[in-house]
């Protein structure tokens, strides 16, 4: 609540002598403002100090009258604003206090200067402790891993549009920019072609390496015409490497370059299975009538005939010599498989 206070202090005229019997000083602060005036406050306790001069005069009386201070300490006032105002009223005006209490102003100045000194000392200690932190870049410089001449770059280098991107705007005054709440500056790359060449030469001197072409198990002998630098020893219990070369290289290369069709191993397994089945068939039919695979169509044609045909059983090729009439279906299945396999073989590229 903003209220404009104007303090009017009627100066008291303190006589040099105080009456021994009565010493009352009554000062009165008159507060005038737009809203509030002191007159409406009720005072229960009044501190009255009256300085009695030797010669009481009407002027002094008037001065005393005007200098009355009514200190309101109404215990019954519960309004916090009123309490606050009462507190303020009880305080002497600042200007006069400062004039009177020079010791307190000195104390305030001293405390402010002490606080400033503490802040400066603290900042200095923090900065110093930062350099003494173990494991910093200084340790790398001390160990000779980093050059020390790069340290101490204080002024940011001015750089405009380093990415050749017209949407990147860099101020002309400085090269700093804010991004994601942090401030960055652009530091240009200083690596030159000559420096790169120097590093390449250094590495070529330091690292002499030949690509290993021979992989041997531990314990194997080195072939006589092989450079020992190109040999790499592989332990027998290596988790994912083996020196055993069970795969034919040409075959592997063909497998990699195959664009369509059935992969080699799948086809090989399929053919092996087919051969096995054929072998089983042939074995089972040794004791039976031999079935020529080239006449498979004839058999199919015979099957397609009217099933109610009255062909004699001895002429039926499906009939076993033992006389058992076999149903055509179980016999047709392997024949069908054979026909399918032959058709697949035809379709192979």
């Amino acid at each position, binding site marked *: 609540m903003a209220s404009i206070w104007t303090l009017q202090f009627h100066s008291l005229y303190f006589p040099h002598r105080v009456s021994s019997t009565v010493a009352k000083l009554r000062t009165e602060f008159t507060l005038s403002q737009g809203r509030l005036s002191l007159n409406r406050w009720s005072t229960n306790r009044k501190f009255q100090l009256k300085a009695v001069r030797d010669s009481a005069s009407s002027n002094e009386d008037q001065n005393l009258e005007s200098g009355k201070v009514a200190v309101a300490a109404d215990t019954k006032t519960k309004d916090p604003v009123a309490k606050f105002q009462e507190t303020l009223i009880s305080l002497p005006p600042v200007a006069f206090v400062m004039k009177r209490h020079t010791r307190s102003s000195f104390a305030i100045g001293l405390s402010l200067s002490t606080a400033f000194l503490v802040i400066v000392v603290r900042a200095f200690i923090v900065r110093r402790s930062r350099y003494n932190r173990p494991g910093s870049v200084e340790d790398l410089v001390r160990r000779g891993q980093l050059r020390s001449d790069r340290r101490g770059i204080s002024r940011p280098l001015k750089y405009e549009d380093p990415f050749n991107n017209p949407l990147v705007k860099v101020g002309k005054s400085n090269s700093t920019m804010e991004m994601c709440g942090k401030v960055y500056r652009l*530091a240009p790359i*200083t690596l030159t072609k000559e420096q790169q060449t120097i590093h390449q030469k250094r590495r070529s001197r330091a690292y002499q390496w030949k690509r290993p072409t021979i992989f041997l198990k531990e314990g194997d002998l080195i072939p006589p015409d092989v450079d020992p630098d190109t040999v790499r020893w592989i332990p027998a219990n290596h988790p994912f490497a083996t020196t055993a070369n069970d795969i034919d290289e040409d075959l592997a290369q063909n497998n990699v370059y195959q664009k369509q069709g059935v992969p*080699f191993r799948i086809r090989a397994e399929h053919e092996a299975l087919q051969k096995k089945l054929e072998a089983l068939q042939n074995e089972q039919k040794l004791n039976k009538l031999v079935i020529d695979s080239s006449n498979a169509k004839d058999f199919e044609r015979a099957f397609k005939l009217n099933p109610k045909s009255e062909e004699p059983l001895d002429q039926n090729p499906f009939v076993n010599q033992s006389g058992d009439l076999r149903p055509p279906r179980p016999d047709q299945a392997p024949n069908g498989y054979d026909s399918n396999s032959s058709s697949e073989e035809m379709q192979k590229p």
Partner: protein
Amino acid sequence: MLSLIPSPTIQFKPLFPSKTIKPLKPFSSKSSIQSVLQWNRKPELAGETPRVVVITSGKGGVGKTTTTANVGLSLARLGFSVVAIDADVGLRNLDLLLGLENRVNYTVVEVLNGDCRLDQALVRDKRWSNFELLCISKPRSKLPLGFGGKALTWVVEALKSRQEGSPDFILIDCPAGIDAGFITAITPANEAVLVTTPDITSLRDADRVTGLLECDGIRDIKMVVNRVRTDMIKGEDMMSVLDIQEMLGLALLGVIPEDSEVIRSTNRGYPLVLNKPPTLAGLAFEQAAWRLVEQDSMKAVMVEEEPKRRGFFSFFGG
């Protein structure tokens, strides 16, 4: 490291036909370029296709597989056909990062053995149909080391001559270390991306690997600095990117900030370049992919500075 995000979202309509061979299978992506940032142009493919790039580091756990997955998907999203090969024989991880682990039925070992064809071993990503994954082997199978490198060379040659057309990029995720797996992975590569982190152990291994790559004839080597903490660099607790470049002497392809979203994206099987809204690391990966396409390198890095203090009482903070 990161450039400012351009404000306009401009759709790019290609004025000139693409020079690369268009695959017969239709892409799920639209004709306009798709990327995290709506650039006003498409990156121009430099070099001969297919670009066979090996992503290696030497030290394990620095982010090779993460880089392969995110850069690969960024390239696919920019409209290039990509085949990513996980050359880590014993510890296969790329399929996990891409969320394709349940779809890997055949690997290169099965192709070599004749159990399947090469196109049957390729796993096409359903999100971006121009991205395919090929794994070298299943964890329990053993690869004959005698022709591991040869086999991978055959695979690359077969991919070049396939019916759908040669892919634009073949990214090979190299295993950690410098033994047989590393030798197999770098055999067919023409260029290399070296992933490192700003710590001295990783840098030493990276330097060794760079020497081996140069001995093997790979000269185009660029560096990606991963897991960068700008606050630690500002506090002089971590080497800066310029310090790393001074030590290794390699051109910078990208600087990837430390991002907790990497772990979440790994758990989900969803690379973080596909996140919406994009993360800082995702933006950095996409920019690295852009530079890879154009065979460009970074010209400047961003260094964090102290923010300007304002207010009379700001110095009380210390």
